[in-house]
């Protein structure tokens, strides 16, 4: 109980925050849905009047035709209320859901880029979709709770005025049902989880099976593998059936309250329905049974609300995890979602500022999971210099670039731009100051032109120059739609080399003060690579570059080479010096394929 009490306070706070974000939609919702819930009292009363009319009770005031007219008026009124209620509901839900999503993505895009999402993107998506929906629903259900409370109050008052004793006996068991449902809730969750796990095992096994078809075929193990699948299938059947039966049982408990309630009314009314001016009329009976149905629905709703409220607590925590350290209130910070009117323009990039010298002192970073990283790295990049970082796999080359650019949050050290300390590296190192091509670049499902520009304002001529520098123009020539070619999800319609060169073009078109690229040539064939280096040296002659590479053309051209080993700088110098003094570089140099003859 205490654990629940503790976690429910922030859940409530979150929900209040969301209500405050769209207070008018929420108020509209509350009024309309209370009406939607309370209105069924009317046909109940009409049916009482109808039956009492037939049995000739004295209290009857309206004839059948009048009752039918009332019924029609009620139906039209309820239809209008439902339509308005749905309209306000979807508007409210969409706004609060969008606020949560917008605040999450805003935070993620403000985090160091290489570590912005804690688990996989797929995992994060489920928090954007399912967890937001759970919270939406819990907030939404509060208006239904209001409505059911209002309905129950009205119903109990009306029924008690007819017969207090029967009302008490009929409605008391309903609270028992709430209790049972509450208890069963835990069990349902357990069974649900078991069912999900068993399903996960089956789908996992199928996925593995078809992920290693070749080894299974070669081993001739098809039959045994399927045997394992059958076993997992059977386990899943057991838990699935258990889950469904429990659900159906619970459903029955709810339905039975109506039936048992009806039976109770029958027993209590047994002696009271006889003769004119009877204590309990047929109309009363009809009204009691009718209200009982709705009251049971209301009780059902209480159960659902309790479950959703708890689920919302879990979802709230899961969304907070995604914020990686920002306070949970960040989720509900109000902002203009710009759903209507003119959207604000894309913010302009920062002012260009000439780079004279970029320095870094004692850069350090440690990966919490593997313990690897970099330690005490110094950099000195004067204007116009070409610096190559090299070293074997896992020596910290990529980490160094990421830490310098703020894509990873450094644990120690400082970075100076023209002698000025850079505090927020992630926000500072963007075009036109720097541009970066990661080792495995990502493109997005947009036309190629949008992928290169990403909102930047550049002329076609400038774009063409960048494309040429990146040796992308031969590929572009054969694409039927040219720059309007849709790149497909994650750039999957392009080859690995094309993606890499497109990313290079994306960097070139930004004309940054400092070019940073990570192993640009890893997915390129020898010819293309050679051309790319040539054009790079020809075009970027005046700008400053920081490059991870172990290719000979790059090393040969470098003004300084930084040799990394186990996260530290092992040596810095020109190729000539290092080939004599540094064993690591000698090894890397000799392992590089000579390939075709190079230009002098």
């Amino acid at each position: 109980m205490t654990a629940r009490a503790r976690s429910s306070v922030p859940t409530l706070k979150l929900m209040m925050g969301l209500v405050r974000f769209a207070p008018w939609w929420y108020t509209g919702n509350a009024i309309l849905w209370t009406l939607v819930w309370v209105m069924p009292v009317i046909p109940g009363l009409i049916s009482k009047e109808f039956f009492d009319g037939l049995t000739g009770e004295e209290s009857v005031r309206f004839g059948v035709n009048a009752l039918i007219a009332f019924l029609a008026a009620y139906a039209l009124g309820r239809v209008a209320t439902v339509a308005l209620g749905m309209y306000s509901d979807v508007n409210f839900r969409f706004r609060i859901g969008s606020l949560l999503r917008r605040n999450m993505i805003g935070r993620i895009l403000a985090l160091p880029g290489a570590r912005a999402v804690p688990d996989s993107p797929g995992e994060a998506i489920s928090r954007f979709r399912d967890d937001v929906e759970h919270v939406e629903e819990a907030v939404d259900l509060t208006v239904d709770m209001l409505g059911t409370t209002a309905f129950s109050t009205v119903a109990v008052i009306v029924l008690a005025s007819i017969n207090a004793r029967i009302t008490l006996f009929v409605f008391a068991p309903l609270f028992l049902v709430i209790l049972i449902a509450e208890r069963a809730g835990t069990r349902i969750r357990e069974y649900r989880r078991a069912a999900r796990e068993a399903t996960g095992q089956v789908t996992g096994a199928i996925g593995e099976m078809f992920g290693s078809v070749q080894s299974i075929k070669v081993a001739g193990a098809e039959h045994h593998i399927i045997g394992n699948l059958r076993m997992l299938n059977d386990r899943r059947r057991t838990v699935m059936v258990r889950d469904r039966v429990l659900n159906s049982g619970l459903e029955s408990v709810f339905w039975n309250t109506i039936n048992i309630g009806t039976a109770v009314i029958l027993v209590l009314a047994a002696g009271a329905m006889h003769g004119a001016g009877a204590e309990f009329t047929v109309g009363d009976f009809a009204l009691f049974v009718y209200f009982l149905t709705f009251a049971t629905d209301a009780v059902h709703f209480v159960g659902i609300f309790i479950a959703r409220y708890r689920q919302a607590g879990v979802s709230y925590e899961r969304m907070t995890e995604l914020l990686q350290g920002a306070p949970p209130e960040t989720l509900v910070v109000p902002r203009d979602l710009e759903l209507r009117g003119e959207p604000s323009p894309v913010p302009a990039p920062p002012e260009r500022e000439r780079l004279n010298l970029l320095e870094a002192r004692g850069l350090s970073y440690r990966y919490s999971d593997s313990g690897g990283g970099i330690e005490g790295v110094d950099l000195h990049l004067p204007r116009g210099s070409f610096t190559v970082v090299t070293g074997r796999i896992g020596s910290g080359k990529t980490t160094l670039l990421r830490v310098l650019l703020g894509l990873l949050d450094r644990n120690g050290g400082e970075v100076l731009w023209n002698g000025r300390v850079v505090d927020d590296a992630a926000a500072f190192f963007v075009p036109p100051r720097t541009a970066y091509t990661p080792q495995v670049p990502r493109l997005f499902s947009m036309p190629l032109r949008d992928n290169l520009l990403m909102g930047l304002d550049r002329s076609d001529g400038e774009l063409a120059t960048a494309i040429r520098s990146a040796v992308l123009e031969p590929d572009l020539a054969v694409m039927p739609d040219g720059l309007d070619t849709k790149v497909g999800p994650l750039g999957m319609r392009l080859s690995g080399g094309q993606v890499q060169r497109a990313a290079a073009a994306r960097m070139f078109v930004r004309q940054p003060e400092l070019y940073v690229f990570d192993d640009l040539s890893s997915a390129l064939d020898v010819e293309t690579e050679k051309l790319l280096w040539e054009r790079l040296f020809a075009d970027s002659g005046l700008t400053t570059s920081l490059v991870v590479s172990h290719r000979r053309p790059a090393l040969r051209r470098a003004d300084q080479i930084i040799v990394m080993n186990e996260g530290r700088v092992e040596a810095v110098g020109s190729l000539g010096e290092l080939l004599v003094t540094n064993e690591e570089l000698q090894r890397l140099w000799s392992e590089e394929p000579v390939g075709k003859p190079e230009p002098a």
Partner: protein
Amino acid sequence: MIPVRQYWHLLADYLRPHRLRMVLLAVLLFSGIAFQLINPQIVRSFIDQAIEGADRSDLIRLALTFAVLAVGHQVLSVVATYVAENIGWSATNELRADLAEHCLRLDMGFHKTRTPGEMIERIDGDVTALSNFFSQFVIHVVGNLVLLVGILVLLFRENWLVGLGITIFAGTALLAMVGTQNVALPWWKRVRERSAEFYGFLGEQLGGTEDIRSSGATGFFLHRFTRHLRVWLPDAVRGFMGWAVLWSTNILVFAIGTALVYWLGSRLFGEGTLTIGSVYLVFTYTELLRQPLDRIRHQMEDLQKAGAGISRVEELLATSSRLELQGGSSLRPGPLAVEFDAVTFAYQDGHEDIGEVVLDDVSFTVGPGRVVGVLGRTGSGKTTLARLLTRLYDPIGGRVMLDGVSIRATATGDLRRGVGMVTQDVQLFRASVRDNLTFFDPGAADETIMEVLFDLGLADWVYSLSDGLDTQLESGSGGLSAGEAQLLAFTRIFLKDPGLVILDEASSRLDPATEQLIERAVDKLLAERTGIIIAHRLATVTRADEILILDRGRVVEFGERKTLAADPDSRFSAFLRAGLEEMLA
């Protein structure tokens, strides 16, 4: 419209073993419905007798009968759920297993174009939809149809005018409800599409944060985020309004129904045709119609969707392997002779189009017990050579022969036992170490496994695991180093004891200790077996008796290693001089 016939055709074989349980299910369902139908009749008698001032004990007896039938109906429906779910899952589990096995036995050309995710969707997703179809169709559609008909029949029994009136009402109501649903369906589809687009966009953003941040495109992407929301909102509103329309139809239709009951009821009661209890009965039955009408309407959409799943499953079952049927020749145990006789091969992507030729007129012979080192650049056809030997593909020209017999004529089981292959990337399953080593063969003895592990120097590793052979490995690399995974793959081969071993050597560097273990294992593996090694290291090449060099699918050099090494003009001696790594890059 509802694919019942198709569905039955697909599942009849799987449902047949559950015939008795199906009968039981029918009995349960129909008794439940009967209880549901009888209860309003009891209430009718109660009201009529109570008004007439019948004996209190008689009335209480009626009330109790009502309670018993009501509870009985609920119990029956829970039991029916249990039986139906069991039948549904047992039958579709069989279908899942058969479907998986069928697909697993299809040729590699089939698998090359399908991701594991897609296979999960076909084998589990589509079949689960069928399973839902089963329970929904039987319980909800059939059950509710019977209930609907039952109610109407009982109403006719009361009075033909009432029966006719309510029947017309029910028919019109169902038409109106399905009609409005069809109006709303495209709106709901649009909402689902919008949401899929949005999450697709979001997923890309979440995966590309490094590119977005470093390109200074945060503002651009947040702008696109807003644009997605702006187009989504009107569609979301329309989707909700679809629900509102559906609900409104329901309200209006049942208001009309109730009005009809009032009108008919007061008329017939006035004439003395119906008692007050009977009017209440008609009232109750009309209310009871809500459930079947609403459920049937609701199922229409789902049932139509099941059709797509059924045809996908059927299509999958109709796909047959492109490999010709296996032969009946057996392979003798012990080292095997290998012969490629003018083998030509190209991967086929679509159904008919033949791709680039990967192996071109390849011929060579390896005597039993000999070891060949295969050298060549990436793309020269080395891996394809191995795939043809294991008959993952059939050549488009020439023959691959083991012990003088074409492998097309060899029984598949024999071929699998006779040929073992270790590839660079070792696939592990999320299962115990034992199942990983034996490929889930329940017949493998622990002693044999431990013996092999001991021989390979892996015994210490197994003892260090919390549950020994029962320790669960994770999928993918299984939390093992590349070297350990390789050694596990060797263990698999030793347990199989084939006469021919194909080894695609790891090209990455391993730590010296593991490297030594692997060297020892390879020595053992090649003893008394024919070996084909796709070599990446000089150490391996020195182990080979013969050397085969491939270039763009052709054999450019084949001969005894010593002879080739001694000949200064051979490609092989050039390799030795320059170092393998540089030449093969």
